[in-house]
């Protein structure tokens, strides 16, 4: 058993397994896997592919938030802003500026980079709860901006539909869902690779050490401000990237994307998956999306509508169930889904001490 | 010899995950003043805070009062204090936005507080009872901090560096108040000023690197220049704020 474990924990094997998983996910649109109750239909159908692609985007977004909250320990309440910049930015540059897809992506990316750098530089001057508040306030400003619909750019309450004039044909239409699926899989892989690379980089180690003990990092002579800012900006632009893929997949952006509730949802996902675990964020994102989707179907099912009010009312609200589940996880399952997995798989092995990052630095 | 009032066995304590006290074992006799000594940063304050459960701790801490033994390491701080343990923290920790009277009122644990006793010991506090504690001088704050502990009838006093940073005249006032209190209650005293230790302490415990390295009668330690230099890193006769031999 231990030999299996040590075999599995070798980096080459790990990456090999991840590669096989990605390859499998890539051929899913060709297969006819049907899990009743989880998928709305077999995996080659557009509905299921759409849901899978959507869950991968949420997983990617959760990963980008994991960098900020899980790795750097920064409790940002404004992460939805950068995602919304991606979705709205691409939508606006395509519709109102008439750019081709690629230049539009570049412009949106730069916009996300700029806003993340500016907001990060300002808000990181304060810490803790004040930091959370400033990020929340900036996201709120973004939300107001979207709602106010300046120059009819954002579409206000109506939302902003994707203008397909400059989008290649293979991304348009229900029949092309598998291409969008591959795009979203690509985004997930890219975000995962960037996140892994960053966590292994020197900056990643420094920022993790800062989370554990900022004073000791200062003593070594490193100014934590810049690594925190770097992490914040990388997390932000990754979210922008995911936002752009979201627009292509969903064909529209709505003001829900920039709401404080959406950031809270991300927080819920990361905690459900397990704070500090990269895989946790991915699994949390996917599990959350499916739960949300399935619970919505469950809520409107006959099984629920036949129940007496006292059961029917709460069960017909997916967010009530998710919120309650979240509370239970925080109370009874610190470490979330990934934490449980990690505990099971190394129940007799020495626990990974996150504090060792400091020793690596000194 | 009678049972010690407090027995500490294998106490370890951590602050923010950092080990600050390791496997400390000592007894506090049921009478007199026991000085807890050691250089700066060896874990004296953390030992006291560990006994009180103010920081994360492990190990056995047994408190014997009125014939029964209570395991303090299983109790929360407020329960420990309610057993009759008065605490005077390092740096006084008075509530600066509360008045002197409010600070004292907050500390009263019984329906029969010893207000007259405190008023006699520290007449200055009576005169300033409506003043915000934050506007008091360091010496006055120390008296308030002592007053907060002494307003209750205690079975043990934990006093952490009561003379730190005070002018010599205040130091002797504080020492006199402690001597008065020690007539009726055993005291565990952390103190850097060896003059004060000499004046008050009956027993001594020396901590170094988070561990106990010496125990014995205070006089024996204080008369041994070599031990003082080794354990405390000072000359016994020249230490303390303005103390002279």
């Amino acid at each position, binding site marked *: 058993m231990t030999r299996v474990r040590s075999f599995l924990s070798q980096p080459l094997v790990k990456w090999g397994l991840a590669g096989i998983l990605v390859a499998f996910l890539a051929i899913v649109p060709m297969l006819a896997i049907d899990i009743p109750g989880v998928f709305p239909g077999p995996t080659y159908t557009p509905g299921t592919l759409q849901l899978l692609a959507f869950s991968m985007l949420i997983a990617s977004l959760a990963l980008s938030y994991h960098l900020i909250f899980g790795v750097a320990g920064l409790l940002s309440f404004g992460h939805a802003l950068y995602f919304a910049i991606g979705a709205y930015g691409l939508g606006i540059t395509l519709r109102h500026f008439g750019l081709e897809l690629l230049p539009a992506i570049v412009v949106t990316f730069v916009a996300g980079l700029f806003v993340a750098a500016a907001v990060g530089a300002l808000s990181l001057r304060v810490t803790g709860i004040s930091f959370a508040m400033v990020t929340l306030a900036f996201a709120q400003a973004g939300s107001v901006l979207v709602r106010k619909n300046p120059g009819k750019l954002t579409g206000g309450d109506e939302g902003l539909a994707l203008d397909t004039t400059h989008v290649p044909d293979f991304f348009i239409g229900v029949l092309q869902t598998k291409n969008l699926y591959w795009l979203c899989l690509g985004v997930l892989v890219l975000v995962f690779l960037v996140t892994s690379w960053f966590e292994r980089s020197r900056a990643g180690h420094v920022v993790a050490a800062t989370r554990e003990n900022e004073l000791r990092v200062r003593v070594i002579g490193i100014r934590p401000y810049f690594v925190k800012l770097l992490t914040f900006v990388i997390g932000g632009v990754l979210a922008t990237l995911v936002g752009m893929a979201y627009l292509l997949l969903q064909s529209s952006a709505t003001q829900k994307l920039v709401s404080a509730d959406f950031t*809270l949802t991300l927080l819920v996902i990361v905690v459900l998956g397990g704070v500090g675990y990269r895989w946790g964020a991915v699994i949390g994102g996917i599990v959350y999306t499916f739960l949300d989707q399935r619970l919505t179907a469950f809520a409107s099912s006959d099984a629920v509508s036949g129940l007496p009010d006292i059961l029917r009312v709460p069960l017909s609200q997916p967010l009530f169930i998710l919120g309650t589940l979240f509370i239970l996880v925080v109370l009874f399952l610190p470490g979330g889904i990934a934490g449980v997995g990690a505990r099971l798989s190394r129940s007799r092995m020495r626990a990974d001490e996150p504090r060792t990052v400091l020793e690596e630095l000194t | 010899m009678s049972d010690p009032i407090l027995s500490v066995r294998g106490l370890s304590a951590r602050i923010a995950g950092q080990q600050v006290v390791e496997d400390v074992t000592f007894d506090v006799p049921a009478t007199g003043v026991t000085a807890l000594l050691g250089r700066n940063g060896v874990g004296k304050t953390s030992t006291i805070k560990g006994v009180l459960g103010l920081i994360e701790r492990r190990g056995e801490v047994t408190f014997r009062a009125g014939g029964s033994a209570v395991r303090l390491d299983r109790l929360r701080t407020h329960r420990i204090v309610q057993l009759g343990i008065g605490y005077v923290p390092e740096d006084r920790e008075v509530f600066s936005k509360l008045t002197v009277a409010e600070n004292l009122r907050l500390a009263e644990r019984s329906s029969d507080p010893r207000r007259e006793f405190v008023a006699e010991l520290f007449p200055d506090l009576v005169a300033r009872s409506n003043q915000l504690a934050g506007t008091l001088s360091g010496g006055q704050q120390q008296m308030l901090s002592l007053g907060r502990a002494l307003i209750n009838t205690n079975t043990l006093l934990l006093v952490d560096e009561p003379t730190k940073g005070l002018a010599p005249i205040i130091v002797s006032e504080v020492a006199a108040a402690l001597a008065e209190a020690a007539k009726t209650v055993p005291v565990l005293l952390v103190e850097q000023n060896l003059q004060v230790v000499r004046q008050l302490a009956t027993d001594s415990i020396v901590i170094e690197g988070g561990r106990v390295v010496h125990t014995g009668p205070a006089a024996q330690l204080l008369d041994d220049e070599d031990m003082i230099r080794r354990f405390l890193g000072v000359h016994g006769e020249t230490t303390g704020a303005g103390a002279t031999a």
Partner: protein
Amino acid sequence: MSTVILLLITGLGLGALYFLVASGLSLIYGLMGVLNFAHGSFLTLGAFAGWELARRTGADNWLSFVASVLLGAVVGAVFAALTELLLIRRLYERHIEQVLVTVGLALSSVALFDGIWGTDPVYVSGPSWMGGTTDVFGASIPNNRFVLILAAVLVLLGIVLFLKYTRFGLIIRAGVENRSMVTALGIDVRRAFTVVFAIGGAAAGIGGVLAASYYGYVSSSIGGSLLIFAFIVTVIGGLGSLSGAAIAAALVAVLQQFANFYLGGTGDFVVVLLLAVVLLVRPSGLLGSKA
């Protein structure tokens, strides 16, 4: 001139609402270090409870209005106290988890309100005087603004007196400054936690009933939208400072009204800007103690 007076008094009315939410947030944060995301739900539940009572007792009389305000306070207080006892207390001293639990509670309670009362706004009416206006130096001021301001002043006064003259008040004031020293004096500070939650919940519940009359409707999102501004008010005023919350609430709301009127509806931006400036110049807020 009459516009200025209208904006000023309407701003103070809105500020009163902010204060009713922010006062509890600030006390809770000050004493326990918990940023309470469920605070908006205390308000919303208070608002719905008040509406339920008013519609059963005939909304158009003062007795029923006062009763619904009181019911809002009680419901808010009970909800808040239960939150502290059942959820927050289990996570003693684990601040991030405590915040997360309140986030979960906010999400699930709003969903539950949706399930019970529907997602559409429920329109409310009060005593007819509340819907009328009063002339102040030529400005027609909606009467409910005066009720809001009066309620906020009474709540402020009540909390101040409570803090000043009761044992719990003493413990809370001391605990905001140095919680561990309070326990070191033999006081179970956790009982004070329940009390501040109940006080904050009561103020929010009152705020809920009055917010319903200010906006003219109740909806499950009413608390959440006020909560964000209450957070901003709390931070600008200085976390843990009651008078800071009062000053910041008035300042933020009045500024918001004026910017909305004179600067083309930019009130929310000006508030965010103010928050950014305050945090950068004075990170501890206007009346915060420690940086």
